[in-house]
């Protein structure tokens, strides 16, 4: 399906907007979460929401090039979580 109907692309853009709003809502936990790990989990959620937003915009606008951006963003998001959980605890293994 090369051409999306306006309804489908509206639904995709609306879902992207909803995920953006959810990311802003989760920002409250980043600001106030009592421990550092709370903040890392909230930032991880914001990152995965960002990946979903980029993929939805790629689908809605018919720009497959955005998907590469989303892939790299997902990789960096995972690396951030693993690196912080590794370097906050002195331990042998990573996982």
């Amino acid at each position: 399906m090369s051409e999306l109907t306006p309804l489908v692309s509206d639904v995709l853009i609306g879902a992207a907007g909803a995920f953006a709003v959810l990311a802003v809502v989760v920002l409250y936990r980043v600001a106030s979460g009592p421990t550092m790990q709370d903040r890392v989990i909230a930032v991880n959620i914001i990152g995965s929401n960002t990946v979903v937003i980029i993929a939805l915009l790629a689908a809605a606008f018919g720009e497959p090039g955005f998907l590469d951006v989303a892939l790299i963003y997902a990789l960096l998001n995972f690396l951030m979580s693993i690196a912080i959980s590794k370097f906050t605890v002195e331990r042998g293994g990573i996982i």
Partner: protein
Amino acid sequence: MTPVEIAIVALAAGGVFFGVVAAVGVLRLPDLYTRSHAASKSDTLGAVLTLGAAALTFGADVPTAKTVLLLLFMFLTNPTAAHAITRAAYDQEIEPWTTDEEGDA
């Protein structure tokens, strides 16, 4: 609407629903471990459903394969990241929340 369009709209709606569940869980649950439970499961399911909706829009082509690989990657790494963070927290001896009356909570 064709069946594919119905599937796209249904998957996007389900993904947004589970995203809302994850956000509510992260804001409202009492401690780090329960919050990471909401983050790892609900948020992963929401992201995977929404990426499935995005994959269906591209038809049978290379972008579909990329989106499906992104979906699988998110499906593997999101719970792994939450597990690693939570285990680091447990090694730092952050106490789990409990309703136990006899505990020191």
